[in-house]
């Protein structure tokens, strides 16, 4: 909202500069966002750009802000009292009748009639003031309503009285099938929820939002009906929303206009029209009240002021602040009974009065203090697990990233079997769904980097994924890893090594290592968005806690990624069911370890993957077997000694006892058992 400090000063005498005024208004809650030099008018050379909060429609005009200035500097606020000619014939009726049929939507409707006006341009002083606020002057009657809006804040409307059939105003809900062409030229279909101003036959205005096109003031207008009414905020708000309209009037009615100001506003408009367009005021004001709006006084206790603000304010501050703002104060011992002015719909409770005191007193006049320390900081249940994973991810070289929460419908289907959660008002077609997987975002980020010539990328994101579950939403925590390029950068000291499946597997192993595992195995059951031959899942204590591997080349190609890219998804909802491993010291070995190598030739089948080989040896139950590692695996056909359809595996077993040095015979016995177990899997020792 724009405000002219010059205009403001018509209502309060203050000596401070505009700059100081702007600063001090802001610090007491009437925010001046900017001060700007206004176009040409010498008298209105500076304009304040105001940021009035939604709870203060009474401040959205010059007189309202002047009231704030009056409280701020403790100076009187000059009254606005329109001077109207005495009615020559008091009994002559205006000839207009007003009926409020819908008292819920309209509590009060005040009309005034002026006959014999000459519509034309406004006087320069009026036009200039409106221009300085960036409002185009229209004609003297319309400008009078606008001027009144910016001066005292009450929205009013001027009708061409001769266009109102039956010289009647009826405030009612619209009927099915009724339409209204509004001032902006748009033909609007009305519903039964719309509150309209109608004449004897048809709607002529959308109440509190916009007047009708056909009854607007034109150069041909000679008789004018001025409307100043009070409409129910929720009714106006719903109506404006329904029609996609937002006007200066609706903005104020939605937030709560001044029930007590209709008469003053109608008179002020009348005064301005008479001065600029001539004509004759006819009849007394037609003031129709459907329901009274009276609000009970509020008890304001000094003790409560102290309890909330932490400071006792002197009595004169109550008088200065509340008195100047238009509240009525009656002292009652240490307390006050406070009457609420009709323009302050935001003040309903004692705390609202306390706020008024605090803000005008000045927030910076309150001392800084600290509340007592109550101790006992409670960490989130998963805080330690989160921290452990995060720390490892950073140490493994993954940069933390954050992607958007929305994905396309195609990605929602492509990356998760879950029923996705759709947005009612998505920002774009590509952002229609809440993400059901972190991978679309991760792949987008990998592609973003690869497209910009970045050779190696390692990223992780921790975030929520969403799915629908029986009309409810299920929101779970996940971590996604993404990598492409080199696992080891090449350079003067070493050759580069490309990032491979086993790099992502190693990183997943490192992430799972802190968790207590009774059982942990990996197999190749993964979702369809993974490369079928280069992906795996990790099953910890019976639950799938991660899937990882190379992204299916088709999925990568769909994002124009040509490189091999690798991802991992860690399902934290399942992983966090497991406890962190508790670390316990194990005595260091006193006796030497013995290593035995087994060079075996296996048929190349699923049954001879490392996992079943390892499991078969573990099942032998050799307590002294400390470690079993694959040292070399050669696929059939790669060397002459390993025929096609078979593979050669070199295993290294390490034996050690905590009690004694191992004897040659027992190691030989274990070795034999291992060879036996391998034979059952089809493995033969190579000589």
């Amino acid at each position, binding site marked *: 909202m724009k405000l002219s400090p010059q205009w403001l000063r018509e209502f309060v005498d203050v000596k401070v500069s505009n700059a100081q005024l702007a600063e001090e208004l802001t610090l007491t809650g009437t*925010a001046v966002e900017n001060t700007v030099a206004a176009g040409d008018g010498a008298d209105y050379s500076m304009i304040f750009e105001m940021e009035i909060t*939604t709870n203060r429609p009474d401040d959205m005009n010059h007189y309202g802000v002047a009231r704030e200035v009056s409280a701020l500097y403790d100076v009187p606020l000059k009254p606005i009292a329109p001077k109207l000619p005495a009615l020559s014939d008091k009994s002559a009726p205006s000839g207009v009748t007003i009926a409020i049929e819908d008292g819920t939507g309209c509590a009060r409707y005040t009309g005034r009639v002026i006959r014999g006006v000459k519509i034309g341009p406004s006087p320069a002083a009026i036009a200039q003031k409106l221009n300085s606020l960036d409002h185009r002057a229209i004609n003297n009657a319309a400008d009078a309503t606008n001027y009144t809006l910016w001066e005292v804040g009450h929205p009013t409307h001027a009708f061409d009285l001769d266009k109102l059939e039956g010289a009647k105003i009826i405030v009612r809900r619209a009927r099915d099938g009724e339409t209204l062409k509004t001032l902006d030229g748009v033909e609007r279909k009305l519903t039964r929820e719309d509150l309209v101003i109608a004449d004897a036959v048809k709607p002529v205005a959308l109440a509190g939002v916009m007047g009708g096109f056909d009854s607007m003031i034109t150069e041909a207008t000679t008789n004018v009906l001025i409307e100043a009414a009070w409409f129910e*905020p929720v009714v106006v708000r719903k109506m404006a929303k329904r029609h996609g309209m937002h006007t200066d009037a609706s903005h104020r009615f939605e937030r709560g206009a001044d029930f007590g100001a209709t008469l003053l506003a109608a008179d002020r408009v009348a005064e301005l029209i008479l001065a600029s367009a001539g004509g004759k005021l006819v009849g007394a004001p037609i003031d129709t009240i459907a329901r009274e709006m009276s609000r009970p006084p509020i008890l304001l206790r000094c003790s409560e002021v102290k309890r909330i603000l932490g400071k006792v304010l002197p009595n004169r501050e109550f008088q200065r602040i509340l008195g100047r703002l238009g509240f009525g104060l009656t002292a009652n011992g240490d307390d006050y009974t406070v009457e609420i002015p009709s323009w302050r719909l935001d003040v309903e409770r004692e705390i609202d009065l306390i*706020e008024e005191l605090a803000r005008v007193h000045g*927030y910076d006049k309150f001392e*800084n*203090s*600290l509340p007592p320390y109550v101790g006992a900081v409670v960490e989130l249940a998963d805080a330690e697990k989160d921290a452990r994973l995060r720390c490892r991810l950073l140490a493994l070289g993954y940069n933390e990233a*954050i992607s958007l929460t929305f994905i396309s419908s195609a990605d929602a289907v492509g990356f998760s079997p879950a029923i996705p959660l759709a947005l009612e008002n998505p920002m774009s077609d590509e952002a229609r769904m*809440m993400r059901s997987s972190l991978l679309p975002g991760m792949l987008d980020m990998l592609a973003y980097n690869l497209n910009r010539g970045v050779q190696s990328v390692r990223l992780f994101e921790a975030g929520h994924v969403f799915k629908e579950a029986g009309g409810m939403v299920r929101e779970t925590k996940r971590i996604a890893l993404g990598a492409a390029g080199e696992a080891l950068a090449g350079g003067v000291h070493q050759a580069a090594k490309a990032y491979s499946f086993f790099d992502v597997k190693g990183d997943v192993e490192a992430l799972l290592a802190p968790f207590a595992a009774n059982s942990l195995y990996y197999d190749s059951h993964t979702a369809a968005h993974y490369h079928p031959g280069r992906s795996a899942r990790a099953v910890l204590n019976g639950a799938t806690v991660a899937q990882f591997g190379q992204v299916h080349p088709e999925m990568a190609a769909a994002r124009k990624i040509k490189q091999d890219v690798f991802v991992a998804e860690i399902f934290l909802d399942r992983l966090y069911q497991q406890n962190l491993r508790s670390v316990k010291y194990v005595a260091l070995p006193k006796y030497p370890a013995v290593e035995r190598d087994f060079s075996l030739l296996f048929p190349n089948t699923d049954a001879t993957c490392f996992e079943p080989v390892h499991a078969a040896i573990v099942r032998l139950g050799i307590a002294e077997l400390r470690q079993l590692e694959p040292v070399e695996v050669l696929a059939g056909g790669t060397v002459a000694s390993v025929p096609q359809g078979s593979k050669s595996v070199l295993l290294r077993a390490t034996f050690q006892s905590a009690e004694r040095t191992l004897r040659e015979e027992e190691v030989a016995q274990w070795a034999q058992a291992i060879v036996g177990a391998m034979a059952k899997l089809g493995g033969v020792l190579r000589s």
Partner: protein
Amino acid sequence: MAYTVPPLTDFSPEALAAAAAELQAALMQESAAVTAAELEAFRNRWMARKNGILTQVNELWLKGSPKEAKREAGQRVNELNKLVTAHVEATEQRMQSASAAGQLYGDHLDVTLPGTRQPLGAEHPVMRTMHEIASVFRNLGYSIAEGPEVETDFYNFEALNFPPNHPARDTQDTLFIAGQEGKALRDRLLLRTHTSPVQIRSMMQQKPPIRVLCPGKVHRNDAADATHSPVFHQVEGLAVDENITFCDLKGTLDHAMKMLFGSSVKTRFYPSFFPFTEPSADMQISCIFCNGKGQRDGGPCRNCKSSGWIELLGCGMVDPNVYNFVDYDATTVSGFAFGMGVERIAIMKYGVDDIQLFYNGDVRFLEQFA
């Protein structure tokens, strides 16, 4: 002329001393000149049992001395024995280590080449900022709380004193979940527009006193540009107890800002409006770029638009209506709440000029924070 041991005729102490001095000088001279190849010959010449210089000294100066000079000569010869032995051994050692060093130098590296480094990952600047804020408040006794990003209207609006159809709802451009028409308004799902719902959830779970900090992700229907993002992060805080005042709110935030931005930072508060607080305030800190002067490098400070102040957060005393929703007794407890945008602070701290950099995963950007 190489040194030879002279036979003595005069065995007076003076003559013995002069002869010893001559021998010592010869030893120094020869040891300094010796090469690695001559080392063994050098040792033999001085220390061989058969006819080494020491053996000769023993023969000529001790055995050949008259009876009355034996004591004096004995002492002198002993001293020379120790001296020569120590000196020959020191010479040998010196020569050996010199040769070893020479060999090591042959293997020398260009130590100015860069080292082999395993890159470390970088914490996201927004997360890093969020953790810094959390750590300040943890030290003040605040526990951390979290809540869902998809919330109900009740937690995001109603319980925070945003009545249905209230214009204040318009200030929070909300993204709604589809298909909610069949539900009561308060049960309809939406993306939380602030982390304040976590305050409500916390108060429902815990009676006062409460000190809780709610960091998290929030969403608004804001088109992405250099200063707006539909996804961003907030940290909100809440303290409710008996006798918590507006002065405590100011003091707590002033302290926290000094912890975050340095002890010279000043704060100032001015009135604002939030439905869930009353009184409500906006807080500014003195501009950290121009130290609140409004001028920098001889021109206006761009960061604070010359005002010397930067707007940082919203706060206020918890509105009594909110207590009604969580079954707290508004007549006995009071408290404050505050909330800040994490991106905004990160942008300021690190001088980032485009908020979109936070969300595209560009490693060239992220690595700067390692």
